[in-house]
């Protein structure tokens, strides 16, 4: 198939960017979206141009590195997949496809389609963990966990930290990401002791990074490649409110 691509090009973090039109020719429909870009880049290199820089690594939808906004939608038109799992059979011969980075103030562009998502690491560092020193753990079966709780925690733990939730949100809010981590840990008995300080610290870090807040658009839920439910945001709000009150009283 033949396609017309409109791609965001930007030399560096401080450079001014613009859309560039690139023709993609002879693309097999079995190819993945990123393989389509590989073919395009291969040709650009042969013709002496500068290939398009884009983030990717595992190419099987689990590492969370790939990050394109395709036709205005983070990770493109297919549901429940990352960009690397999107295949060209979802497009038609002759289509024009718009390819942009994940846009958010807290995700500055590094080059072309590559953005800096280190703000997510800092949110986790603020409190997204259970403090247990290596070697100090009790026997793994010492604490039975209700299967329902374990499963709900797991659903939240499937977040791959790609940042599509932020890119889709009109407020650039990472509440789905933060809520998913909070639910993952807070639903487990091991996570209870640090529940309050965890949610307070993560939300404060999220604000400090320049992300917006949730105003219930739920675009995040719609684009999440792991289909994490916006319920985690509701739970986070409740936990945050309780923790704030307790903090005020103490």
């Amino acid at each position: 198939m033949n396609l017309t691509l409109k791609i965001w090009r930007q030399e560096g973090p401080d450079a001014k960017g613009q859309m560039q039109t690139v023709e993609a020719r002879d693309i097999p429909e079995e190819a993945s979206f990123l393989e389509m870009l590989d073919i395009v880049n291969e040709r650009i290199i042969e013709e002496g141009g500068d290939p398009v820089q884009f983030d990717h690594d595992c190419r099987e939808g689990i590492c969370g590195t790939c990050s394109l906004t395709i036709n205005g939608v983070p990770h493109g038109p297919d549901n429940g997949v990352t960009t690397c799992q999107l295949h060209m059979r979802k497009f038609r011969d002759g289509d024009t496809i718009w390819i942009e980075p994940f846009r958010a103030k807290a995700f500055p562009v590094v080059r072309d389609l590559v953005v800096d998502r280190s703000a997510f690491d800092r949110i986790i560092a603020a409190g997204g963990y259970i403090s247990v020193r290596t070697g100090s753990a009790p026997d793994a079966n010492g604490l039975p966990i209700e299967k329902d709780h374990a499963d709900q925690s797991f659903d939240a733990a499937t977040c791959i930290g790609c940042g599509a939730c932020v890119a889709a949100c009109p407020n650039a809010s990472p509440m789905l990401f933060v809520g998913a981590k909070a639910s993952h840990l807070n639903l487990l008995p091991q996570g209870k002791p640090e529940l309050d300080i965890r949610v307070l610290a993560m939300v404060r870090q999220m604000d400090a990074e320049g992300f917006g807040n949730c105003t219930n658009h739920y675009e995040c839920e719609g684009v999440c490649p792991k289909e994490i439910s916006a319920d985690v945001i509701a739970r986070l709000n409740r936990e945050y409110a309780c923790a704030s009150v307790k903090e005020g009283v103490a």
Partner: protein
Amino acid sequence: MALDAKIPSGPLQDKWAKHKRDSKLINPANKRKFTIIIVGSGLAGGAAAATLSELGYKVKCFCYQDSPRRAHSIAAQGGINAAKNYQNDGDSVYRLFYDTLKGGDFRSREGNVYRLAEVSVNIIDQCVAQGVPFAREYGGLLANRSFGGAQVSRTFYARGQTGQQLLLGCYQALEKEVHNGGVQMYPRTEMLDMVVVDGHAKGIVVRDMQTGEISSHAGDAVLLATGGYGNVFFLSTNAKGCNVTAAYRAHKRGAYFSNPCYTQIHPTCIPVSGDYQSKLTLMSESLRNDGRIWVPKKAEDAKKNPNDIPDSDRDYYLERKYPSFGNLSPRDIASRSAKEVCDEGRGVGPGGRGVYLDFRDAINRLGEDAIRNRYGNLFQMYAKITGENPYKAPMRIYPAVHYTMGGLWVDYNLMSNLPGLHVLGEANFSDHGANRLGASALMQGLADGYFVIPVTLAVYLAGQKPGAVTTDAPEFKAVEEEVRTRTKTFLDIKGKRSVDSFHRELGLLLWDKCGMARNKAGLEEALKKIPEIREEFWQNLRVPGNGTNLNQELEKAGRVADFMEFGELMCRDALDREESCGGHFREEHQFTEADPEVKSGTTQPGEAKRHDDKFAYASAWEYAGKDKPPVLHKEELVFDTVKPSVRSYQ
């Protein structure tokens, strides 16, 4: 130089306890004065970084990804082994040790493997305490399943994403230490060389992948946890960025490289569909718990709709050849069997390089919902990639490069022959012999990082004066200069071909000559052709742009340049090893009807034939300089507890 593995004396089951008891300690006030450089942030590197920081060491951790959470450990699907015996099915530390040693075709060290089995139980405890959501039963206790090469259920799992959940536990522990100030994290930073001062590894030279800045970092010890070299084949299940550069640069600075020819070809991957393909996708081995592998008995049925082929015309070849292990035969055996049936013309799908993995019987027995619960995300992944529905028609699978058992040589302390350099996880060679069993990679990475290196690193550090070497040492300036020159060279060639085109060419050659089956003529041909490809690479490469901003072509060029040299070492090792063992199958060395083991029914014609009298050693290659053949050293493997036997899974 004689290779001393430094295995503690005494009975096998007491070695690790004795070693811990006898090892030197560093007092807490002194730990702060030591800086430890860790390259790689996957299960091994991340676990080591978090744990060493908890102990009080100053840690600098580097990764090429934009976040440590994205290391390729994340892609492991199936599970992690541990000798917990929660199932009461007769498992024990000894049995896990024995299965792993036998699974590795008796080409690994007894002492290391026993220690691995021993600490496996602590790993599960640690991960559960971190909040890793392993699968549970309704009673709230942990669930288990079986993996290849074992007849007990000792594999703990988290749906089809065990690696992700374990890595998140590890990453969160790492970020906790970043927050506490013990770990300085350097993402998007690639190690391009190692610095040796007075015969000790004391630092690295890195490139900031966003700004192109090249800089040096000094430390009291260097830990490489940089994964395997499977991407030398271009197509593999590895992430696109996985590379051998850190390990190979260390090798060129004096570290021995062991058993590079031991590569694992995973039997259950989605087949190649075209020459545009950039990577291969694994379907977890856990699928073989419920899926049955078959091809048509007759070649003429290969093009038929599989659902129209009656059972009587199907050949469930693993169940037929290995009745006691069946579809759960080890990876090397399952892969070779798939190649055999495809070579016979019975392969299915486009190109005839595929076999069926069929869930029909399991769905009839357990219902579609039960199967969806167990493997839902894997089935979804298959459907997305192939556009086919695996609940209705069998999956098509074919073997693909997955893991590399070879790696830098290390002793029992995980230290290389080069003092100060320690190597963890897939990057070292020590625990899996010639073939790794499923669910053992996660176990080894975490064992090395959480439980082994925190003890054994002190053995080295106790003899070192902290902070004695800084980046002011002339050795750093010299290596930095070499790195700058090399980077500039890539940009200055200004030829016609892309990095990928060379990488594909090298990969195809290696897959053909040094893949699932190898022979002398093919390896010699590869050894002749690789230098030719390399020669053209350095003449005709095109790397656009400059070195002062994010430049992915430049990053790839450095990695592929090292693969070009490493591929040669791999073939050389494969040529030297005149036997078949595990993932290394030399066509000249297989059982035939004439062998007594075949006559007695112990094994079958076509199975791998080891030669313990000549090859019960780990190779350790020493770099001898440009255009000089590497020097082979041998570490003889000593088996005090287990007598190596013909590896039978019948």
